[in-house]
């Protein structure tokens, strides 16, 4: 039967979806600002981080209030717990996007070290992983969430390749060191965003099935 407090959970769910959409937008804009050397866009990404911070606090407050007053059990309890964890991951995604935007501002002042190909490709993969993890939240599609967890390795591989490539740049031409280090950190940030997407995917499997798949190698390797 419907209860008068059902609307509170709907608000909670829609806040989490809004937070996911906002985090995805931040990552896309940060990488776009880097590739296009768009300082204005980078500044907007940095300023918009507050939106994610505020949503994280709102979601936490809603979750604590709901647990406190409504005594949720079973699926409702998992939803509230998972929502708090996922919102924490999304807030960290926002922090990484802000970090990328800050580095994009510094890099925009210098000529590009190399054409940006791998970083946008890697960022697209991370954004797609976030998108699929959110889809799992909306539709309960755990197969999609499992696929997200497996794709994390691909992002790790590109990150390692970039690391080697940028290291050789620095060895050969010390004048590239400061730019190469910025790019290494950006690569690491994108790799972290994919890790957060993986966490969210794992949380969504827990939400849908009540099964904890963290640190389970058989899940990661398929």
């Amino acid at each position: 039967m419907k209860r008068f407090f059902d609307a509170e959970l709907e608000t909670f769910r829609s806040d989490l979806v809004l937070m996911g959409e906002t985090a995805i937008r931040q990552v896309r804009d940060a990488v776009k600002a880097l590739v296009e050397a768009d300082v204005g866009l980078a500044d907007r990404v940095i300023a918009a981080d507050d939106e994610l911070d505020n949503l994280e606090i709102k979601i936490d407050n809603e979750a604590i209030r709901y647990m406190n007053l409504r005594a949720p059990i079973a699926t409702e309890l998992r939803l509230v717990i998972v929502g708090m964890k996922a919102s924490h991951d999304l807030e960290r995604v926002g922090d990484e996007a802000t970090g990328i935007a800050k580095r994009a501002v510094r890099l925009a002042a210098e000529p590009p070290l190399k054409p940006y190909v791998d970083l946008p490709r890697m960022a697209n993969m991370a954004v797609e992983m976030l998108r699929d993890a959110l889809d799992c939240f909306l539709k309960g599609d755990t197969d999609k969430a499992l696929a997200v967890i497996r794709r994390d390795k691909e992002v790790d591989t590109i990150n390692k390749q970039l690391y080697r490539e940028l290291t050789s740049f620095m060895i050969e031409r010390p004048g590239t060191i400061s730019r190469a280090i910025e790019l290494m950190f950006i690569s690491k940030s994108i790799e972290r965003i994919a890790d957060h997407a993986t966490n969210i995917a794992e949380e969504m499997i827990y939400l849908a099935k009540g099964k904890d798949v963290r640190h389970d190698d058989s899940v990661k390797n398929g």
Partner: protein
Amino acid sequence: MSTATLPSTSRPTMTQTTTASAGAPALNPAYIQIKDFSFYYGAAKVLHGLSLDIPEQQVTAFIGPSGCGKSTLLRNLNRMNDLVDGIRHEGDILVNGHSIYDPLIEVIALRKRIGMVFQKSNPFPKSIYENVVYSLRVAGRNGKAELDEVVERSLKGAALWDEVKDRLHESAFGLSGGQMQRLCIARAIANRPEILLMDEPCSALDPIATAKVEELIHELKKEFTIVIVTHNMQQAARVSDRTAFFYLGKLIEYDVTTNIFQNPANAQTEAYVSGRFG
């Protein structure tokens, strides 16, 4: 625990507690004001100088272990304790700004303004229809059109109409426990009271009937000022806007419900709401 070990509690009032957390329900004006109210059964002092304001059109829950005085206080609000021998009180209770102990006030008229629902449903041995209109008949109001309207409005208000509209003239004893309790709520609101007092209205009901009555409380507060006594902590958390915790006849803590259950100021309140004593 003896009274001597109780921390001296300054009696919280609405004004003291309205700086509650963000997201607390907006504070409605006080409809019932309890002012330094003490109550005695013979020589036994059972309520000790209680002061609290109960806001209109909100739900206020009284919680506390058995014998803490919450039902006694509830029954004082419509002067039902007048029927007990050897009682006396100090202090005052105001409803909508007027003392209920004003010598000019008619107790019967007061009780008409205050509906009451008890722990056990107590339908009269009459039809569903006659149960609802009983108070109107007593008052000499017998017009069929008016009574029909009151029955429909009250039963709809108590979320019972759809279940009984085809058997209004059958005995009320044929209803289920949950339906009987909702019939008693319909009877309590038939005469359009201003206040609804509920003394553990769900303690004899199953979870589904309880959920229905809780939904009903949530609806009824749009129209009435509601005071509910309950032993069910989760129910107090779900249905009330403000919660008062009583212990040994004293008001220990009174605040918006979210604060009482999330961050109570008093250690005894916390121990009670988390099931560690009482």
